[in-house]
């Protein structure tokens, strides 16, 4: 409430274009007769190359926020701009195309069980209409980057939780997305594997300059993030700029 126009960047350059920008973002759900306020007005600007951790207690609205900036859901109020485009004005196919600019990684991996690792990673490329040869090459390369070069033909059921999450990250990285959204990426894997995922994300951010926004409870990830946003009950409670590199 106190920071209705929070500008994380404190940057003087006015022409700066943001990867994601939200204005007074609100989301309410109707559960029977009860109105649930999941988000109560979020203003945020995310710059290219950011590594942002969104923290807060369970139910504070982290997933809801990620879904909205990933164009998976529509806000009840306010605006989401992705790459400068107002998501609320987009319809069906345009919305689907926009989702191709976002790499989404879910807490429960959400891999297609009947497809092997390579086919799972290829799927977004197939959806984009990339030809067989090209997408196979890209998928194999991405699987190598996430450290699964030797698990290419394994089905999700033949992979550990950490391996499945890495397949999901490889899938999210296909087609050079503008940013990665990760919803509690280490929530369902052991701490050692979680550490490996954190290292991978940090590497992707630092070496490839990939913008990362993630929701987490995990102190290990929070420690690595450049910026931290703490949500409580659908509002930004505080941010941690001290840790920011900017």
């Amino acid at each position, binding site marked *: 409430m106190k920071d209705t126009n929070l500008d994380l960047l404190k940057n003087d350059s006015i022409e700066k274009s943001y990867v994601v920008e939200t204005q007074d973002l609100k989301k309410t759900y109707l559960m029977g007769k009860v109105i649930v306020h999941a988000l109560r007005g979020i203003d945020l600007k995310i710059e290219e190359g950011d590594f942002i951790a969104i923290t807060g207690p369970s139910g504070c609205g982290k997933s809801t926020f990620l*879904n909205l900036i*990933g164009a*998976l*859901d529509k806000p009840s109020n306010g605006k989401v701009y992705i790459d400068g485009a107002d998501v609320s004005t987009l319809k*069906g*196919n*345009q919305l*689907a*195309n*926009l*989702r*191709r*600019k976002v790499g*989404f990684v*879910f807490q429960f991996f*959400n*891999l*297609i069980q*009947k*497809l092997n690792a390579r086919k799972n990673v290829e*799927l*977004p490329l*197939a*959806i*984009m*209409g990339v*030809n067989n040869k090209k997408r196979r090459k890209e998928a194999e390369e991405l699987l190598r980057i996430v450290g699964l070069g030797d698990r290419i033909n394994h089905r999700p059921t033949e992979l550990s939780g950490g391996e499945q999450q890495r397949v999901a990250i490889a*899938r999210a990285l296909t*087609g050079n997305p503008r940013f990665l959204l990760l919803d509690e990426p280490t929530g369902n894997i052991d701490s050692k594997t979680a550490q490996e995922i954190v290292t991978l994300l940090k590497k992707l951010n630092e070496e490839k300059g990939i913008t990362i926004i993630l929701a987490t409870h995990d102190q290990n990830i929070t420690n690595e993030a450049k910026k931290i946003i703490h949500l409580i009950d659908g509002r930004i409670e505080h941010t941690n700029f001290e840790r920011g590199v900017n």
Partner: protein
Amino acid sequence: MREGLIKMKILDVFKYALSGIRVRKLRTFLTTLGVIIGITGIVALLSLGEGFRIEMTGQFEQGFSLNTLTVTPGGGFMGFGGGDDEFYLLVNDTETIDEVEGVNIALAIISKQVSISSNNITRSVSVVGVNFTQYSEIYGSTFLAENGSIPFSPANDTIILGAGIADPWNNGTLFASVGDKINITWATGPILNPITKSYIANVSTILKEIGGFGLGGPSDNQIYIPITTAQEFFDTEQCNQIIIQLIDSNQETIDSVTSEIEKLYDDKVSVISPTALLSTISGMFSIIELFLVAISGIALLVAGIGIMNIMIVSVLERTREIGILKSLGMKDRNVLTIFLGEASLIGLLGGVLGIALGWGVSNVISLFLSVFMSGGVGGGFDTGQQQAMALSITPILTPTILFLAFAFSLVVCILFGLYPARRASKLNPVEALRYE
């Protein structure tokens, strides 16, 4: 990213649909089974019906003279309904009918069931008492001699055998041949204590094979004796029917003679023309065919509802998958195509298998019918009556039937898959992902 380029290849969409089918083999098979049964039924019925129709037309065309009328006692169609038990047609009624304008020949027929024996073999046949000269004039194309000749002034004990009587096994082992003597026995009176009469007849002629039912005309499974012999042996002046040959086959002649004769007998007789009979019978067959097709249609409808049910379940259990696909940027249209693709693959498979199976089933039925109808199973002379229906249906698979069955299978599957597929494509990705 250029929007024009973001377009999933249709081949990839279908491959994805196929992968779904491969994973759920049993479920898919069971769904397809419903379609297969429906299509099998339709194909079997239509191809048998088509074969039957062609067989029937062929049968009727044989021995059917368009310029004939049949007069039988009793009003109404073929003696059904409104019959007057006290009314009989007499042999000498032909004299009255001969006077009617437009009548060329009027011929009385007495027919009875008798048993005939030769070489210790006895069988039951229907005997026709008729004037040979007039009969061969009316049915010149079928009442023809194979052995011997048609006697135009026959002796009292003359008998002519149909081809099926002389050579019942159709293999040259003859029941009787020209010059043989056969014993004719007629039983009358109470069934338990019948009075029997017999006489020895002299085979003068064996007829050429006619084929067909011989409705209204000569048939392979009858024997023929002079009308005068019949009157004397059966001790009757009543005849079963009077066949009329008209001067031509114009509809006006048919109509005027028909009404004249009906008036003459105070509507106590029915006058039937072969064309009317043919159209009545073929009308009956179309109704039967329609009925059978309707049954298959219902089977297919049930299969269709089954498909819808399976598709709805499939959409429900794959809600999460749909959520993933949509979150990865798959368009509604492609999600729809995946589910419709699944449905049409089921339709395609069900169509092909159903047609193959239907064809097999109709051939088996046809084989069964021909064995049963020809009396080959029951065998021997006791089944002589069944031989009167020596009928073999060769199923025919016309391109129309093929196309119909295939199109029907596809249409049913797509139609019933449409609703669940649309529902799947409209799902909100977040809600779909929350689905357990």
